[in-house]
């Protein structure tokens, strides 16, 4: 049974990684793979999004399958499917075998986390993405582990390449080409906070060395949710008279479900890995649908449950004490991806999974730190100095699991305004330095260019008249894609830059009369 489980876990992990790698443009308009599939099956995101936004993307109804599966078979998702669970499993196996399997019995902690998240989402605060295992895993891989892996691989290949050792370079270039076609990113991805997000992730993996599947046992809110459903599962475990209480089962238990306690077995903690059945020397343990279920009572403690709920509720106003939420108060640098909902609605849905940042064709989408308040940490932010929004690309809306970024057709996207570019006349070459430059105008992608050139005669230092073309922005036409800022040859602080003013998703953040939300929606 153990080998079968490992094969199934391996296959799901491979599927997950395959879809992860495919979350990248191939130059065509669609990705061609359902890259957000694992998130679609996540009932925790489903439930919290329903609570916070009172609406949910249709694909999330797939997550009912996981709930049904749990009611039928228990937490098999944790034991057999979850890619983070599998990674935890792998790291757990690195523990020294002789370390005694101390169980800390902190199982209840994850239920309090779950209650906190449910309570806050009930009051419109969507924090689930911080700890949802799938969100966390995709974010950590996208923003940290995968960039690090790419950086390391490239460093190795580049070093060999520049060594100029004839035969060696041929071999390494062969593998480099092969890797570029398969597992490496098209271009080196780079993200703010990559190190922080990666350290948190590696910390979670390292906890497995403290105790087997620490995260899954004590912290995972999805595990807790499935644990609740698992209480009524039809697959039951029974221990026959033959049990000699040798304790062999307890040592191999993945979830810390106290399998040696017979009647006091914690069904909500069981991952249904069936290790106990495998290992039992007396063959006294069996799983089946017949018979009566005997299991420990789950007692979370009324006071603690109430405290968790209260904490979740209090977090809502507490996290919203920021002036960022005032009309006109949003951080002007907070450029949201095209098709993003109005900020309040956006935050109710965004689960910070990082899919949009992973897929962003120019690497311009970066995780926020505090630009959107603590509530919006790790949500997507376009940083044009790093990468602009490609005019005809619609990938971020395609991969967003919750609809925080709407899926746009190219035609509609061409009209959605992320913000507005403005020229910094004190740094612009033709404006301030009588030096020709038209780069921003050249790259401006709107059919009638939003950046136009004003031919003026200026004087240089010697008093000689020079004709330059000075860029101006047509506020009606600019969509804030930021390519002008990305390509502006004035490095550092650019001579043209985009702020969120005029963004079509907002009613308040406007500059021109009769513009804004009603125009687009």
């Amino acid at each position, binding site marked *: 049974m153990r080998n079968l489980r490992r094969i199934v876990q391996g296959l799901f992990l491979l599927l997950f990684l395959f879809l992860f790698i495919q979350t990248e*443009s*191939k*130059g*065509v308009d669609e990705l061609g793979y359902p890259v957000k599939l694992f998130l679609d099956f996540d009932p925790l995101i489903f439930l919290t999004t329903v609570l916070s936004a009172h609406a949910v993307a249709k694909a999330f109804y797939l997550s009912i399958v996981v709930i049904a599966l749990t009611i039928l078979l228990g937490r098999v998702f944790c034991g057999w499917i979850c890619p983070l669970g599998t990674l935890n499993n792998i790291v757990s196996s690195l523990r020294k075998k002789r370390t005694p399997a101390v169980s800390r019995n902190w199982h209840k902690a994850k239920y309090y986390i779950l209650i906190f998240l449910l309570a806050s989402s009930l009051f419109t605060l969507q924090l689930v993405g911080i700890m949802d295992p799938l969100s966390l895993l995709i974010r950590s891989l996208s923003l940290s582990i995968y960039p690090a892996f790419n950086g390391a691989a490239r460093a190795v290949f*580049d070093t060999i*390449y*520049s060594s100029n050792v004839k035969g060696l370079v041929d071999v390494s270039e062969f593998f480099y080409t092969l890797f570029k076609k398969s597992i490496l990113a*098209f271009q080196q991805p780079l993200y703010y906070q990559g190190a922080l997000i990666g350290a948190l992730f590696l910390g979670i993996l390292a906890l497995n060395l403290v105790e087997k599947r620490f995260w899954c046992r004590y912290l995972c809110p999805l595990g807790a949710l499935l644990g609740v459903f698992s209480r009524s599962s039809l697959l039951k475990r029974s221990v026959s008279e033959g049990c000699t209480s040798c304790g062999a089962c307890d040592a191999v238990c993945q979830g810390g479900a106290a399998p040696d306690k017979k009647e006091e077995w914690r069904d909500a903690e069981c991952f249904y890995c069936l290790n106990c059945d495998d290992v039992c020397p007396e063959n006294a343990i069996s799983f089946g649908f017949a018979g009566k279920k005997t299991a420990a009572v789950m007692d979370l403690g009324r006071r603690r449950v109430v405290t968790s709920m209260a904490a979740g509720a209090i977090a809502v106003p507490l996290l919203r004490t920021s002036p960022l939420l005032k009309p006109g108060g949003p951080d002007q640098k907070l450029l949201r991806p095209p098709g993003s909902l109005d900020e309040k609605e956006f935050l109710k849905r965004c689960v910070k999974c990082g899919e949009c940042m992973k897929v962003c*064709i*120019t690497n311009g989408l970066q995780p926020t730190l505090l630009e959107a308040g603590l509530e919006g940490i790790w949500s997507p932010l376009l940083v044009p100095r790093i990468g602009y929004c*490609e*005019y*005809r*690309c619609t990938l971020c809306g395609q991969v967003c699991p919750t609809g925080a970024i709407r899926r746009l057709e190219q035609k509609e996207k061409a009209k959605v305004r992320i913000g507005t570019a403005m020229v910094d006349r004190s740094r612009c*070459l033709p404006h301030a330095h009588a*030096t*020709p*430059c*038209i*780069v921003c*105008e*050249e*790259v*401006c*992608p*709107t*059919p*009638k*260019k939003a950046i136009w*050139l004003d031919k003026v005669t200026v004087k240089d230092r010697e008093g000689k008249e020079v004709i330059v*073309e000075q860029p101006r922005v047509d506020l009606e036409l600019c969509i804030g894609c930021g390519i002008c800022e990305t*390509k502006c*040859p004035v490095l550092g602080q650019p001579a043209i830059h985009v702020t969120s003013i005029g963004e079509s998703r907002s009613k308040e953040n406007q500059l021109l009369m009769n513009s804004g939300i009603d125009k687009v929606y």
Partner: protein
Amino acid sequence: MNRRDFLKAAAIAGAGLSLPHTFNALIGSAEAAGSIDLAVVSGASPARIVAAAIDAMGGIKRFVARGDIVVVKPNMGFDRTPEYAATTNPDVVAAVVKLCFEAGAKKVKIFDRSVNDPRRCYVQSGIAGAAGALGAEVSYIDERKFKDFSIKGEALKTWPLYTELFEADKVINIPIAKHHSRAKLTMSMKNWMGVMGGSRSMIHQKLDESLVDLALVIKPTLTILDAVRIMTANGPQGGSLEDVKRLDTVIVGIDQVAVDSYGATLFGMRGGDLGYVKKAAGRGLGVMDLSKLNVQKIAV
């Protein structure tokens, strides 16, 4: 052969070698195809006008030899589909690739340092698909392959250029003719920005001089200006079909200055209206004066 004959022959050969490349090629042209400098061919089928134009220039075998590695350089700079005329027509590129292979080319390489995302540019332009299907090696720019070249020009002293271009046996430039606010028009000479590394957008500060400087070191075997569709305004990105004019024409020549000079006439301009054409002609890099060129117009 006695000593005197040998010295005579050596002197003649030496003189021939010391001639500028383009001039040398013009002599070749005169011998092979009755002194045609430019072939301007119009017709509904891009493949046929390309074939006819190259035929008029003396046939592909004059330019590509068996076993050659040929670089074909289209404009794939922008994420637009072919009907917007922001990128070279894929059928024109495909026709050239096909002819190169027919002439026995060992390899045909295609690349461009694009302005928009390279994946989208290569795919949406239709060029990666069309040329790839014929066996051309369509590759993305590899930043490691830029090397600083000593140009010693007026504006460009040294600049990183793409080494694969210089390692090729033959180079065929296939730009598209379109509007550009600073250069007025972007055609053959400006298409070489696609092999410039570094922060090439800086050259807009001295654009005409820089384009001429590039022509000092980049000497294509053949230039095929795609005017199947031209973009008349809002270039080089474009994006509106209103700015696209269908001419169903290609202009083929060895002298890229002459090609651009003729290209200007498609837009109602003269070669002399383009700063870089004028400068290049002034520096003897090619012929701008169309009256001094033997232009053969063909309709197919």
